[in-house]
């Protein structure tokens, strides 16, 4: 691995006997938007706070453009951090909040005034310059927090669940705003969230974290389309995951034994040890019985519809098949006649849509 802009090497953090981060390694390039994605308690915030300097690593290195951060105090690292809840100074106005880091850097008053004005204009808050944070809405406070970190143009911006306190609609809008701000400013971002939609839509790279370990690292589409483990498949998006008992490879391709049925699959050499099959609901096609079953690139089986939920553009179907219950999601327009519960239909999916994943996070071969 070549030296990246930000390198985390074998980061370990123990609290007494409890392990919060268990040997995390990461390397990101300048300009990347990395999201640390994981359930609460997975250690993602600990990694972020170790980069920020508020958590002292038990072991490991954190290197930012060749500079080892670990021995430095938070104020010596010159990073930007947006805290959960924003941590705006309530006794200062918006403009004073944004000017604060510049004053600490001993800028001249007129330079500060100019930069504050530019930064507030960038986040569209110019007319709120003299308000106190308590007089602003959640979304506006969030933009002040961003402006406060961007005013001194740090190399690295850390975001600690920046959108978790906001309602759904506002969250979607601010996701777009942060993303376009990232493109405009070109700052490298490390973001922490447990919201997979946020991770998929904002990031250039995602590190999925579970129990203090980085389970998978990649681009959003790579993570979504090629999950490495059962955990990743279920945590990012929805997925049907079935335990694979055995995989056999013959001249005409590989087959997996699932619930007593042999299904054609594409082998995944990265998986060592116990395997599972992950199948995204939207890859399953529901059709009338009697479709051609000779296509070797497709898996076809009978299915009984147990439940059918109409979502407008898509329809979700719970079906029971020979390999167990599955969830399918189809564009309503392609479904034809609305299926009824109890009806028998035919379920099919392309062989390559079924991904062989590792059953267990710890059995993963760490690259």
């Amino acid at each position, binding site marked *: 691995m070549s030296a990246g802009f930000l390198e985390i090497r074998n980061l370990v953090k123990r609290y007494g006997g409890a392990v919060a981060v268990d040997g995390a390694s990461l390397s990101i390039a300048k300009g990347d938007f990395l999201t640390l994605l994981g359930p609460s308690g997975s250690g993602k915030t600990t990694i972020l706070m170790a980069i920020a300097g508020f958590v002292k690593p038990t072991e490991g290195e954190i290197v930012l453009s060749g500079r080892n951060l670990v021995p430095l*105090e938070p104020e010596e690292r010159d990073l930007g*951090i947006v805290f959960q*809840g924003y941590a705006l100074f309530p006794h200062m106005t918006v403009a004073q909040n944004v000017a604060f880091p510049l004053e600490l850097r001993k800028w001249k008053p007129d330079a500060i005034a100019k930069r504050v004005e530019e930064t507030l204009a960038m986040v569209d808050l110019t007319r709120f310059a003299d308000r106190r944070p308590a007089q602003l809405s959640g979304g506006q406070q969030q933009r002040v927090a961003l402006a406060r970190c961007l005013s001194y143009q740090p190399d690295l911006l850390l975001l600690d669940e920046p959108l978790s306190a906001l309602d759904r609609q506002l969250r979607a809008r601010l996701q777009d705003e942060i993303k376009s701000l990232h493109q405009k400013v070109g700052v490298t971002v490390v973001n922490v969230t447990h919201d997979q939609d946020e991770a998929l839509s904002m990031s250039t790279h995602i590190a999925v974290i579970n129990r203090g370990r980085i389970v998978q690292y990649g681009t959003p589409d790579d993570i979504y389309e090629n999950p490495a483990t059962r955990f990743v498949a279920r945590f990012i998006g929805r997925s049907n995951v079935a335990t694979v008992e055995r995989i056999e490879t013959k001249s005409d391709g590989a087959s997996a034994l699932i619930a007593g049925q042999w299904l054609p699959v594409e082998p995944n050499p990265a998986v060592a040890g116990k395997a599972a099959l992950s199948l995204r609901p939207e890859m399953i096609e529901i059709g009338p019985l009697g479709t051609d079953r000779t296509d070797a690139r497709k898996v076809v089986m009978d299915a009984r519809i147990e439940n059918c939920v109409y979502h407008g553009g898509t329809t979700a179907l719970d079906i029971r098949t020979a390999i167990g219950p599955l969830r399918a999601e189809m564009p309503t327009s392609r479904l034809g006649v609305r299926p009824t519960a109890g009806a028998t239909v035919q379920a099919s999916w392309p062989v390559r849509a079924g991904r062989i994943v590792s059953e267990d996070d710890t059995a993963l071969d760490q690259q």
Partner: protein
Amino acid sequence: MYVFFVLPAALLLFFLYLLPLARILMISATDGQGFVANYGAVLTSAPIHRMVWTTVEICAITTVATLLISYLIAYVLLQVSERTRMWMMLCILVPLWVSVLVRAFAWIAVLNNSGPVNSLLQYTGLTDEPVQLVRNQFGVMLGMVHYMLPFGILPLYAAMKGIDPKLISAARALGARPFTAFRRVFLPLSLPGLYSAFVIVFIFSLGFYVTPAILGGGRIVMIAEYIALLISQGYDWGIAAALATMLLSVVLAVVFIAGRFADWDSVLGGSRR
């Protein structure tokens, strides 16, 4: 309907507090040679001037000392573990339940010329002669500060607890050294708590009676004791009432002016918004 629940307290306050207070005002204006003579005596008498200056000096020094020490202790309370905090709280609160008389005599026992402190000072060779620690201004101030500390610590701690610790982290992430983060963020946010602690402690200090009487050994006379002496030794009810009225005016003025900046909600246990 609810008026009836408040009525007993209102009656009690009226008959036992407001009525006597009104009578004091009356006496200050009518007793002896009347209003002008009484208040004129207060404003011109040299012994009263000396006594007022002693009172103001002692109150100012003890208030500042109490607030400084209280701020430090409240800040430490905020940083320590839950367990240590419980023990510290106990040490702060237990003296509150000990009578002020007992505490004054305890200080005399500890600090007099043959007490343990002086014995230690002489034993270690720091002094040859016993150092006068009580029955003087220092003794009075020590006793007062000791008495008032909980009243400074508790409102300050309540106000400091309301400051989000993330703000300090944010200040440091933005480039502030720990002391700068304290000075620019924590200190300004703790000021409302400091104002309320100031009002409580300063008003308290003005009214001290037992502590200066015992630890001052008759040499240090503050305003409360002076008023008592005027009355009990039968000198002049009119001048005593005039002094009491002026003391009350000062207290009300302090409550009104400083109280406007104070953070009573967190001191009294309410929410801030």
